[in-house]
């Protein structure tokens, strides 16, 4: 089915919602598409059905009143021609025509391979949080949390509230760095309160910095995690192991549209405009800055896409402030080089295609390794192993091809008959 709008936003997380509200104020026809059935993206998942955060409620309410259309369960899979997105929807493929496009595709968790990392019961902290929000029981479960980023604390806190027994929370970054992040927290009262609240509830749970996992063991399920601080190594028993190392931006759709990246993030100008005409980008794809940073970038993008430059400009100072926070985050939670040697040669790096790190190392570059070992060729198309390989070996995914996500074969077909298709039924004469 065909849909046409003036401004189309991909992603209904904080950045997308803020962009939609701002864009709708310009009086244009605005639509937001999201692959999930709900509003709120990763962080506000579940807020629609079980309201908890007032900030989320405010934005969801604001979006509802904005007049923007929500195309839910709609996943953008390709850009068949300029001004058109091809999207998959459970009922029928959708072609969404846009004049201006705002990409607010968010981020995903970064996983690093270590011996045992593919055992059942090892999950990303964000992924586990999402499962729990959808009603998956963790009551009484012993959970070890490790990896990196503020997300670890937030997730541990949430799991504890759902009755889990948090064995420990381990942050790979050293105390000195995480403490250095303090001033950035202090200058952002909202974050600070959130941080303090989390600390209180976590009381009694060891939060350690400068500690990282080296292996996981178990039978049909993870049972033990071995951790180290670089000098000592010890083992903790668990039923689940939540492990993730910061976030990786979802830049596949921006790349498919031809947007230039710099340092792995979508390059934008002061109006959040990407290098491709009429395409904007906001939130995590431009840098991992958290929910408030995503909100302000989203609003700027929405205003700019609606040609309202004054209100966009009025937000520049606020954004600059969040960009300082973003830079502080990156410094505080930078991954330590020791993590590059967690995986042994016989550790899988590509889970889709069962490729070990040792096998991958036999080849000279990502493309060579991919062609010869099939790594990155599976359904995830290198989303997991590409990020890991980039960190460990300094090489990673090189090209994005449609579909951006796996999609039904029929969803790849557009309705259009174009100039190069004068006679679609008569193909063999």
């Amino acid at each position, binding site marked *: 089915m065909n849909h046409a709008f003036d401004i189309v936003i991909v992603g209904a997380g904080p950045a997308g919602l803020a962009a939609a509200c701002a864009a709708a104020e310009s009086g244009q026809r605005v639509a937001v598409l999201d692959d999930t059935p709900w509003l709120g993206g990763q962080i506000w998942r579940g807020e629609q059905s079980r309201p908890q955060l007032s900030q989320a409620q405010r934005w969801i309410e604001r979006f509802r009143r904005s007049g923007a259309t929500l195309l839910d369960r709609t996943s953008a899979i*390709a850009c*068949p*021609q300029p001004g058109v997105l*091809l999207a998959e929807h459970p009922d029928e493929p959708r072609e969404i025509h846009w004049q201006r496009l705002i990409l607010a595709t968010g981020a995903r968790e970064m996983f690093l391979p270590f011996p045992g990392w593919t055992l059942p019961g090892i999950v990303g902290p964000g992924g586990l949080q999402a499962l729990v929000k959808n009603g998956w029981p963790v009551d009484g479960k012993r959970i070890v949390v490790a990896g990196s980023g503020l997300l670890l604390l937030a997730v541990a806190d949430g799991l504890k509230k759902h009755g889990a027994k948090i064995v420990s929370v381990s942050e790979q970054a050293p105390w000195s760095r995480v403490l250095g992040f303090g001033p950035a927290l202090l200058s952002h009262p909202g974050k600070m309160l959130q941080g303090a609240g989390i600390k209180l509830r976590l009381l009694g749970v060891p939060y350690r910095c400068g500690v990282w996992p080296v292996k996981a063991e178990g039978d049909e399920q993870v049972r033990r995690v071995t951790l180290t601080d670089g000098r000592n190594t010890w083992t903790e028993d668990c039923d689940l192991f939540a492990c993730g190392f910061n976030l990786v931006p979802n830049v596949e759709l921006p790349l498919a549209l031809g947007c230039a990246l710099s340092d792995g993030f979508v390059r934008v100008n002061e109006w959040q405009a990407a290098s491709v005409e009429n395409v904007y980008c906001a939130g995590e794809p431009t840098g991992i800055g958290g929910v408030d940073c995503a909100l302000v970038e989203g609003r700027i993008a929405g205003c700019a896409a609606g040609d309202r430059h004054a209100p966009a400009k009025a937000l520049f100072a606020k954004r600059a402030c969040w960009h300082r926070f973003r830079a502080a985050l990156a410094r505080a939670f930078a991954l330590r080089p020791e993590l590059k040697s967690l995986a042994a040669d016989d550790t899988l790096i590509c889970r889709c295609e069962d490729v070990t790190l040792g096998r991958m190392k036999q*080849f*000279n*570059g990502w*493309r*060579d390794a991919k*062609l*010869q*070992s*099939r790594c990155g*060729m*599976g*359904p995830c*198309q290198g989303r997991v192993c590409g990020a890991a390989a980039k960190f460990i070996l300094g090489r990673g995914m090189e090209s994005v*091809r*449609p*579909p951006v996500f*796996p*999609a*039904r*074969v*029929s*969803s*790849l*077909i*557009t309705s*259009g*008959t*174009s*100039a*190069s*298709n004068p006679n*679609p039924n008569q*193909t*063999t*004469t």
Partner: protein
Amino acid sequence: MSQTRDIIIVGAGIVGVACAMECARGGLKVLVLDRGPIGGGTTAAGMGHIVVMDDSEAQFALTHYSRSLWHELRPQLPEDIEIEVCGTLWVAADDEEMAEVHRKAKNYGQRGVRVEVLNSADLEKAEPNLRRGLAGGLRVVEDFVIYPPCAARHFLEQARKHGAEVRTGVHVKALRSDGSVLLADGSSISAGRCVNAAGPWSPALTPGLPVRKRKGHLVITDRHPGFVHHQIVELGYLKSAHSTGRDSVAFNIQPRKTGQMLIGSSRQFDADDLTVDQAILDRMLKRAIEYLPALGRLSAIRAWTGHRAATPDKLPLIGPSTVSDRIWLATGHEGLGITTSPGTGRLLADLLLGRKTEIPSAPYAPARFANGGAHHE
């Protein structure tokens, strides 16, 4: 020193490495150069269907010869070449195409190619996911499927065992009539002869070569084992492959050892970039779903394109160029280079070494074209 090198092969696609393997086995000192990784050109984009074809006598001779060489190689091929002896199923939609089934069956049968004719009911049994009401088909029993990039690596390993040297990441700028090659960095490497095996890029190294890029699209699915059991090709494919005119698509699907399916294919001239062309993709996938109605519901994970190296008579160029007897050609394999690589390597080595070829080499001689490697320098 480098002067002692007999031959430099430019291009480590499946054709170049097959030549390297046969030349090295024949005792020649071989150097293989490629600007990219091994098998990273068209060899990384193609389907890997090893198929006997009979559009012309010469095409039959080379594909049949090559397929028998592939079967000889089979016992030594490593696991990752993913051999799947699924056979080819040529599908006839109507009586006219069924007549072609019978013609082909007779032609193949007379020449010792194992085939079976299927009527409508047999076809339904052989491939239950095909739409009902098709006229029948032809099963070519010993055709099979491989994974080309690993086959290329294996051929190169064989060449190395016989002393061949390989350098990747080396961009060649020109082939010289004294047999030496000029590299992009300005240096040159001398040898008795050089071979242009640069696939669709070969005209850049031998200007005037009658080779044009012919773009093809493919889509790979997630793992759905058992959905089809043969490489299935519509007989209309012949008409599509034949036409040198406008863009065409034809139904062609391949079961991979991984349980995935590779869906093809299209043919376009004058489309030199590698972006996916939505209009062509639309036609190609619609065509495939016409034949396999349930295919639309399966999950697709990637679409891509590649360039075939097409010649005017759909036969490759194998042998000395008309420019210089020190510049040889092994290119122009269009949509059959994976199949015909072993035969090409053997022919080239036989010609270079002055051995008797096992099939006549004249139909592939570059000299058949007035400009089979013309106006060089």
